[in-house]
């Protein structure tokens, strides 16, 4: 009887402890993520344009949503830009990070040094990265133009960031420079967990290098690939710093992505209701995308 009682208090205190430990985090999450999202969703059904002299939100039904989807061409342009940007950055950093990880997977001279070097850009502040590359890609005095000209790759100086055709590409390169280290360390960690026996067994069965890669390495990394590409997509959908610092969404609208467009709508044109409705559409879009992406990649297994 006594033992039972003791067990009960102990397990109860264990549960209480758990609740006590999780409660502060839950409180913070509700206050800083739950409530704001709820408020934003509520606002999205309201007309709340400070520039029109609205002092309080007035209910507007789904007019904001209808306007975004049917009349606002910039909404669609910025969706296209967001997709180009996010997919471009993730693809480029995926390829670069994966290649470096493969080169560092087996013992090689100076492995620790290489890993440190290639990981370092990840911690450099985004604003510093933006300013640095703004300088390097400067049309008149930038070192990039100078080097490319010297190498004979271009005939004249290029306005990397001021040409509507090149600004997006340049931003993708800059952002990928910053994301590659993340991809590299994640893949390196993933590669390290592949059981040696599997590789050896495949070689014994007569598999060549490429086949080992295709049938042993890739399947083992499937989950890692899913996590990093999904995280990368979600992050780059969010990205604001590089674009806002370097191009402000320009020239004209060439690099205006959703975050930039929504920010401008809310904090330049003070149309909070409309900005919120675009934010909600974005959230639903990325949620649906993620669900399909996870489903697609997990079902491809067999």
């Amino acid at each position, binding site marked *: 009887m006594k033992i039972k009682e003791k067990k009960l208090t102990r397990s109860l*205190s264990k549960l209480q*402890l758990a609740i006590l*430990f999780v409660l*502060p*985090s*839950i409180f913070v*999450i509700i206050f*800083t*993520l739950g*409530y704001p*999202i709820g408020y*934003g969703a509520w*606002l999205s059904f309201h007309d709340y344009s400070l520039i029109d002299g609205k002092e309080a939100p007035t209910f507007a039904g789904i007019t904001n949503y209808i306007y975004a989807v049917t009349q606002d061409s910039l909404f669609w342009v910025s969706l296209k830009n967001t997709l180009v940007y996010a997919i471009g950055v993730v693809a480029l950093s995926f390829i670069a990070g994966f*290649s470096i990880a493969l*080169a560092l997977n087996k*013992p*090689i*001279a100076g492995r620790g040094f*290489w890993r440190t*070097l290639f*990981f*370092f850009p990840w*911690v450099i*502040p*985004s*604003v*510093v990265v*933006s*300013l*640095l590359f703004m*300088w390097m890609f*400067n049309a008149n*005095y930038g070192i990039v133009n*100078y080097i490319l000209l010297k190498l004979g790759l271009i005939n004249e100086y290029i306005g990397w960031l001021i040409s509507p055709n090149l600004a997006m590409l340049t931003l993708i390169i800059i952002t990928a*420079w910053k994301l590659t280290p993340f991809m590299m360390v*994640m893949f*390196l*960690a*993933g590669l390290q*967990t592949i059981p040696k026996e599997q590789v050896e067994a495949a070689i014994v069965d007569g598999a060549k290098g490429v086949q080992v890669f295709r049938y042993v390495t890739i399947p083992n990394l499937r*989950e890692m690939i899913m*996590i*990093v590409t999904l*995280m990368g997509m*979600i992050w780059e959908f*969010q990205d*604001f710093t590089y674009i*806002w*610092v370097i191009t402000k969404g320009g020239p004209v609208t060439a690099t205006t992505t*959703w*975050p930039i467009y*929504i*920010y401008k709508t*809310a904090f330049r044109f003070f149309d*909070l209701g409309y*900005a*919120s409705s675009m*934010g909600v559409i974005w*959230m639903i879009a990325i*949620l649906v995308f993620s669900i399909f992406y996870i489903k697609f990649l997990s079902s491809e297994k067999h």
Partner: protein
Amino acid sequence: MIAKRFMSGSNIFKLIFLIICSIFVIFPLYWMLSTSFKNLGDVLSMPPQLWPIRPTLENFKRVLFAYPGQRVFFMTFFKNSLIVGSGTVIFSTSLAALSAYVFSRYRFVGRKVILNAVLIFQMFPLVLLLISFYAMFSKLGLLNTHIGLIIAHTSFALPLCTWMLKGFFDKIPKSIEEAALIDGCSQLQIVTKIIFPLALPGIFSVAVFAFLTSWDEYLFALTLIATDEVRTLPPGMVLTFVGQFEIRWGDMMAASVVVTIPIAIIFLISQRLLIEGLTSGAVKE
């Protein structure tokens, strides 16, 4: 034997590949450093000077001590970033440590559920959050305050911090706890006297991560802070250097160097743990 393994044909190919890749990392950093030591004229000289011919510290002096036309400048931004960063570290690390312990030890939710929750939190459009934060903070009087920014940064860092720390806690064997329980430790003592000290490296790496998150954050710092006295480094630097009629690249790079140095030091101390923390949640053990 070892030498033979290092020098095999495929390794030489790999080394050449790595050296080429490293140029893309090293050169921009070198260019930042090189520009920061050039005077106004040399920065724009054509052809560019690979090495500063007349190296000078005037950019650093101007950036650190007295910037023309600015009442408050770099040191204030620097101090503000330190305050906000430290606050974020304290809040997010302690909150994450408590909840990560529960997620690691109580089997009511799986690894998948937590990973998905972390991913979903990351999906919330930051600009949408920002609109609500702005409205909420103006009601609560938190606009233009450090504490408001600390709250915002904590909410960004917390989900990933929890995920990272859970990975570290998972590595501490359960048998240690059971042994302590038999020895008469209370549940709370087990956590404070055994688990947290054992996970100290992990907690440290999460603290570094939280600091980096705050040190890097631009969007909220730009919008929720209105005056130079309270402003942090990222928006401070951009507002000082970008959008001027004539951009002073030398000053800009000098400021960039000063902002990056503390980060580089933290990085060199903690990179092993940071990598472990980032990957431990995602790798199947």
